[in-house]
């Protein structure tokens, strides 16, 4: 399925400025539901059986938003896990990619699956079309290492 961009995202992104305290605010579902939205702008407590049975809830309503992932990155950072935080920030960038695109990029990153040009092209598209600078950086780094270690295609 393709992720649908909606206006509410801009508002949620603004709320990432919140300064979270892991001890007080985590788990967010229990302590800060006010900060959580679905990609369609729904509040987490609006994901109910009655809404589902009324046909109001679709698969996009049980997906995480980039804003929420950045909040969780803040928590990871504050409990001393910078790599985990970085993973969440890369994930935030990937929320706007379709499942199919995500799987394609993954398969392209496998050893001997792509030329340097193909990897560079993916990195450029990630950056240009999705603002995915961290993921683009990861793919470019892979291209460099794969070249040095001889695991590009061909």
């Amino acid at each position, binding site marked *: 399925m393709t992720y649908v961009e909606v206006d509410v995202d801009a508002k949620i992104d603004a709320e990432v400025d919140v300064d979270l305290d892991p001890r007080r605010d985590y788990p967010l579902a229990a302590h800060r539901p006010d900060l959580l939205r679905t990609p369609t702008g729904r509040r987490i407590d609006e994901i109910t059986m009655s809404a589902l049975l009324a046909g109001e809830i679709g698969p996009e309503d049980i997906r995480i938003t980039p804003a929420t992932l950045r909040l969780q990155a803040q928590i990871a950072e504050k409990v001393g896990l910078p790599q985990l935080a970085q993973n969440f920030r890369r994930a935030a*960038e990937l929320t706007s990619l379709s499942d199919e695109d995500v799987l394609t990029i993954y398969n392209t990153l496998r050893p001997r699956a792509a030329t340097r040009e193909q990897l560079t092209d993916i990195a450029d598209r990630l950056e240009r079309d999705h603002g995915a600078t961290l993921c683009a950086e990861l793919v470019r780094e892979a291209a460099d290492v794969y070249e040095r270690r001889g695991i590009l295609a061909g």
Partner: protein
Amino acid sequence: MSGSAPARRSRRTEILENRPVNLDGFVEEWPEVGMVAMDSPYDPTPSVRVEGGVIVEMDGRERADFDFLDQFIADHAIDVTATEKAMALDPVEIAHLLVDPKVSRREVLDVSRGLTPAALLEVVKTMNVVEMMMALQKMRARRTPANQAHSTSARDNPVQVAADAAEGALRGFRELETTLGVVRYAPLVAIALQVGAQAAVPGALTQCALEEATELELGMRGITAYAETISVYGTESVFCDGDDTPWSKTFLASAYASRGIKMRFTSGTGSEVQMGNAEGRSMLYLEIRCILVTRGAGVQGLQNGSISCIGVPGAVPAGIRAVLAENLIASTVGLECASGNDQSFSHSDMRRTARLLPQLLPGTDFICSGYSAVPNYDNMFAGSNLDSEDYDDWNVIQRDLQVDGALRHVGEAEILAARSRAARALQGVFAHLDLPPITDREIEAVTYAHGSKELPLRDVLEDLKGAQSVMDRGITGLDIVRGLDAAGFPDMAESFLGVLRHRVSGDLLHTAAILTPELETLSAVNDANDYAGPGSGYRPTGARWEQMKRLRHVVSARNPEEEVG
């Protein structure tokens, strides 16, 4: 080795010869090919050199000569600002920090984030197994221990998987894992596992172990709740043979997080030897590289403890000590550890218990990363160190030692009700989704069965068509929720929707997260291990201890004729 056997053998030798332990395989060490647990003359000497904020030498190798693991670890796993200070410490001194209860977990993490693979190896080489257990008790991420079950079927029978999942959750497992004999069956069996998981005690997370891309697809659809079969390896050539690199796996990790799905990597001692290229390093040295790749990728946790290669470390001297050491190191660098005790490795009951205790006694995030919730012949992960015949032994050991192995004894009536309910709910979901029917006869059989041999055969061809249609029609977790409700199981629908709702919050993405039966997240963030010596940390008390006191047969002390259950 002794010479040829004498013509006349002693009766004692004959008796020993026939003990189950002598069916196990043992080999001598051969360090040149990596057949050595953790003490090899060919492992590198710890070193680090930082220039301009970049690690330019690590464990005796210059940056220009780094293989891709070295580079990934140096650039992503090790904290450049902490490494020179941490590497200046003596390995014995670091081991003391690990063992000393007065040194907090956090203080150890501040040191471990600067250590190279060879340095971590030197630290654990100074420790015996009791010291490692002391350290693990403090270093495991989550305060409350948990456990994971395998729920599989030799015939990929979804009805069986659902019933065993329900029983497993009732007995205490917080994660349930399945896999397949016939891979095309996966969608039906994954649905069955998910439905069964909600039947009695809700909130157990489910996964279906498959090839990486397929596993991700089932996760994205909300049919499974977490992923674990994301293998990493300790040498470049074996990593490539596994058709991945640290970068592809890092991308995959972010892909899971981008869908709000919990995941961990998998690795273990012996995999590189088994796959034929250990580059002459010890099993543990290579495993430490896997552990650091996991941290570098920003993954919250790791399943390790040799896992499917346990026969390899199990065959060499100090191999089981090395397996404990790998669990300890995963915990020591801040990862959730699902600590093995899964694939079977010994014919000896005594030996498989000895292999279990180093994880059970200190407690880990998941003591087994799969306990087989089915009989051995039904276990599609090639058997487990513990299986469904061992439930009572496990519960007695917990009670004897007052150690929380995260399981409990459940009376038969409750188990029968849970198994039957899971099968009936699956019958309803299959009918709702227009999948091959489940008969009342199957439900009756699975309620009372031990394994797949006692179940009516299903029409495999029809099931496989149904499985394909699940994928073709784009069925998601929400369709299963609707099916549960339509079939008259609104509470199960509600709890599965509750599990799916957690994707929106991302709370389960944090270290060692599980859901409680009340569907609350418990992770290293809000349930951080606070062990600080005697009188501190997690100890089973109160209601949990009362639960652990119950066994199949306990008699009244006042009236020995009366069973108190």
